[in-house]
């Protein structure tokens, strides 16, 4: 059975030019040299994800995992190659989604929802569900700057989990929050995954979580695909490589 493709990445290359920001004074001295170092974080990666699949991504630190997720989320575009979302909405869930520190949790829910492409009305309808899931008590009406980092990510997770976009990208978020919330978010992930049409990409270092959740694993090494395939197989090879 041929499944519908939700996401297609083709020959993706992302470079960080070392054109850091400069101060006028520094640039006067450095202008003469003018050598630019180019660092390729992702080097020619191609893969496609069928609708409803849970894809895990593993790899050591600095192998381009987060960079690739951000590119898929549209935060920056590819230097070469293409990312085709086939018209699906996408949201990136990573530690501390873009909150405005001085505003309350409630207002931030609406703002984040709007940034994810929902209307104010749609977010308001889901508001109670989000607040209940985040379980922040009276903190929901306090400015976000008063939150602890755990509360931060609880709220962030709740927003993206309840406001359902077609593709969810998760960047090492399942390991935050207290153990109760961890359990809850894990169950929520399970629930999302059980829905047929949800596509999820998870970056994680916790083999156990990936083992339980994912259909397939992609192993990224130095910006290139080292291995892609069945969860058990890739994880075993990866574990062996890392030890």
């Amino acid at each position, binding site marked *: 059975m041929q499944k519908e493709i939700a996401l297609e990445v083709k020959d993706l290359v992302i470079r*960080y*030019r070392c*054109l*850091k*920001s*400069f*101060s*006028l*004074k520094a640039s006067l001295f450095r202008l003469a040299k003018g050598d630019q170092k180019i660092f390729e974080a992702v080097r020619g990666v191609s893969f496609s994800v069928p609708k409803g699949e849970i894809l895990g991504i593993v790899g050591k630190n600095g192998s381009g995992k987060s960079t690739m997720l*951000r590119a898929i*989320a*549209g*935060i*920056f*575009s590819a230097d070469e190659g293409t990312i085709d979302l086939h018209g699906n909405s996408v*949201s*990136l869930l*990573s530690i*501390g*989604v*873009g*909150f*405005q*520190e*001085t*505003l*309350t949790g409630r*207002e931030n829910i*609406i*703002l*984040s929802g*709007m*940034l*994810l*492409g929902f*209307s*104010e009305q749609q977010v308001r309808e889901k508001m109670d569900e989000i607040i209940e899931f985040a379980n922040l008590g009276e903190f929901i009406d306090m*400015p976000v700057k008063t939150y602890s980092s755990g509360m931060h990510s609880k709220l962030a997770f709740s927003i993206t989990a309840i406001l359902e976009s077609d593709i969810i990208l998760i960047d090492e978020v399942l390991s935050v929050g207290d153990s109760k919330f961890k359990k809850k978010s894990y169950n929520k992930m399970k629930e999302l995954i059980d829905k047929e049409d949800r596509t999820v990409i998870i970056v994680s270092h916790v083999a156990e979580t990936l083992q339980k959740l994912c259909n397939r694993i992609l192993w990224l090494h130095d910006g290139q695909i080292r291995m892609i395939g069945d969860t058990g197989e890739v994880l075993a090879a990866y574990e062996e490589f890392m030890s």
Partner: protein
Amino acid sequence: MWKRFQTDVKKYINYANYSARSDLKAEVASSYLNWLWWILDPLLFMMVYTFIAVTIFQSRIEYFPIFVFIGLTLWNFFNKTIQGNVKLIRNNRNIVSKVYIPKYILVLQRTFVNAFKMFISLALVLVMMLVYRVPVSYRVIYLVPVLIVLFLLTFGISCLVTHFGVFVDDLYNVMQVVLRLLFYMSGIFYSIEKRLEEPLKSVLLNVNPMAFLIQCARQCLLYRETPSPVVLLLWGLIAFGTCVLGIHVIYKYENSYVKIM
């Protein structure tokens, strides 16, 4: 670009709106005196400049306090918006690095916030006009095009400043000096028309948009005169051009902003 701009604005305008309102609300909530400062700030500075101008320079201008107040109102909007936007992307790295948003929407949000404060200040101008019994004519409506041009100009320049602010660390210091110079050249607490000699006078009034716009606002509010429609239209076109350029630049380079921070 036009098409992309249209769909993006449609998609994100509500965000800019809601976020601007929340910002204002948060400002009020954080301290009870805060919203009072929206009024107190121009009011107190008006007193300072009136004192200096009247006692030291013996200035004799009709309705001088209102004259200064109008200048300060427009100037504060322009000045605060541009200064706030120099470090805009850096200050919003939370959002910028987590989700895609056309960066000029953030600029627009800041502009909305300051525009709202400007309107409060303008309301105070009306109150002062009543107190001083300034005779008004239908020409007051010319304030509308003046404010539109001011808004476009401020937004356009802010977009450009936002863009360069990402790449140039010390742009903030540079802008402070430039804005200060512009402040003194905009005739906020003196009349360019009466104080300055000929070549400089026309150059300032026609080449410095702030000097021109502030003069226009005073003409139609205080002195029942009609602002020069040709120059106003010209500045309107330039302001529009700046907006187009600013949005174009941001579209072209916004991808690399996150990588640089």
